[in-house]
């Protein structure tokens, strides 16, 4: 059947902006990496839901396209034979390597490369599985799939709050003016369009895509509220005279846990999609 909607065109006009732009100044890139690594650590527990959803084989070679600080590369490397982690940013790759070492993994290879410049067989080998999470590769699923011998997987927020949207609640009215935070506020486009559009793009490319929505969230334990304030404040900006507002905002995400500590928790949902390179295009079932 001829597609009724040009989903790729819809993606172009509704897709979210890409957070990291190559060529940005070094200080920004460094800050971004620090920030991103903190967020990934807080998502560590829920990231396993995404990893567990995928039909991986122990002998798989896997390519993580836009790996960031290795949020997925590290738990994936514990399940497959080898992982190649690609990112455009040197700074996040340092964290990826560090996190791989900390997990005692020696089957992760990091490589600096922009998805836009990647060519299968030329500067990146094809892998059994290619995965792309919340990164620029989602903009071109056809190209992304061309790196896979068996399976392509993508991870995106499931019509649920993204990291910038979650943080904009915590840092609401905490600064008079802030360039970086404004980019959160002007995020604009409706992300609810996102995962459905990606599903249909994959289908129209001739794949039979699987989709699974999993619980997701960012969480961390602290010994006191003060400790939580001091840590979370590093994820955004707060004017000195706006500390009260920040604490009020953050309190909504803090609860006393059964051990007498404080738990920080921001809830969201993520969807994982995957498709085989050569799906069987038939059914004989009665």
């Amino acid at each position, binding site marked *: 059947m001829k597609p009724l909607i040009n989903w790729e065109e819809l993606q172009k006009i509704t897709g979210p902006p890409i957070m990291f732009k190559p060529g940005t100044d070094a200080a920004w890139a460094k800050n971004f990496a620090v920030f991103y690594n903190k967020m990934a650590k807080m998502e560590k527990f829920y990231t396993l839901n995404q990893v567990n959803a995928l039909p991986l084989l122990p002998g798989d070679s896997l390519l993580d396209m836009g790996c960031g600080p290795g949020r997925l590369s590290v738990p994936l490397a514990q399940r497959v034979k080898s992982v190649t982690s690609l990112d455009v940013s040197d700074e996040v790759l340092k964290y990826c390597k560090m996190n791989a070492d900390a997990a005692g993994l020696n089957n992760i290879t990091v490589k600096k490369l922009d998805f836009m410049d990647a060519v299968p067989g030329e500067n990146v080998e094809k892998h059994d599985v290619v995965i792309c999470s919340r990164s620029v590769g989602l903009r071109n699923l056809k190209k992304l799939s061309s790196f896979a011998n068996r399976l392509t997987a993508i991870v995106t927020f499931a019509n649920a709050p993204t990291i910038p949207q979650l943080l904009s609640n915590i840092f609401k009215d905490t600064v008079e003016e802030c360039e970086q935070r404004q980019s959160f506020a002007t995020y604009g486009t409706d992300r609810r*369009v996102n995962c459905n559009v990606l599903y249909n793009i994959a289908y129209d490319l001739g794949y039979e*895509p699987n989709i*699974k929505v999993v619980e997701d969230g960012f969480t961390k334990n602290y010994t006191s509220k003060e400790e939580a304030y001091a840590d979370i404040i590093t994820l955004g900006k707060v004017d000195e005279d706006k500390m009260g507002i920040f604490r009020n905002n953050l309190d909504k995400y803090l609860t006393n846990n059964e051990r007498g500590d404080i738990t920080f928790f921001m809830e969201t949902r993520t969807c994982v999609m995957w498709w085989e390179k050569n799906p069987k295009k038939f059914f004989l079932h009665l």
Partner: protein
Amino acid sequence: MDEACFDPSYGIDWDDVWRQQLQEASFRTLGADCWNAGAGNWGKAMDGSSTSNYVDQLLARMDLSPDMTVLDVGCGSGRLAIPLAKRVRFVTALDQAPAMLELTKQNAEKESVQNIKTIHMDWTKARIDIDVEPHDIVLSSSSALMLELRDFVIRMDRAANKRCYLTWGVGANMRDARVCSVLGEKYLPTPSYVVIYNLLYSMGILANVEICQMSGTRQVKNLSDLVRTVAHRAHGRTLDETTKAKLIAFFAKEMLCQDGYYCQDMSSSVALISWSKFAPRLASTT
């Protein structure tokens, strides 16, 4: 695109897309009369001559517990309802064809299954809470062969306390396609599972889709039985004796014959679409 004007149907009447494609499909089984007439043939799926692992694969993927109640919409010969009844507290098996319900009853008796009740009803007209009580799980196994898909899935959703499961074949039915070439017709498949996925999305439901590979064979003693299943699904066309002879010759050529039985390949690819009653729904305009 802000929340107020977000339209998850993208302006497309997916129900209408479904209806049109189903009406145009080369082969389909619509209406109780068709199923009543075919009961003799379809009942054979239960009689042990089939080794398809469809039932086992599906049961393995359903989240079931012994205290649950299950409603099987379009139960057919009971090939899922009966094994389900052995795993849960109670199964209600519903079908629009009395002859199919009779098969379910007979098969349940054969297996000494008593916690199963049959209901004769056209599901697209069922009144939930009046005609049918809500159940924990609502299942439709390849039974959404209805012109009114929206009415069909809305009722599934309303009748479920916990979760809905719906299966539908993936891709073109290659045997149907070859039968069409024997008949000298252009093959038009039944609508794709992606239409179901998009219809659900337009209703605010972000469903999971799992593409499952089923395998197995079925032994067929008499090829005219197979020709009869083609005739039952040929809606409006009558197969003359010459055509029937052509089809028998075609089946004889494509199937292995051993010990007087023809071996029919039951390999298939099936989309298992499921959704939870607890997951947040999108704001729907419809």
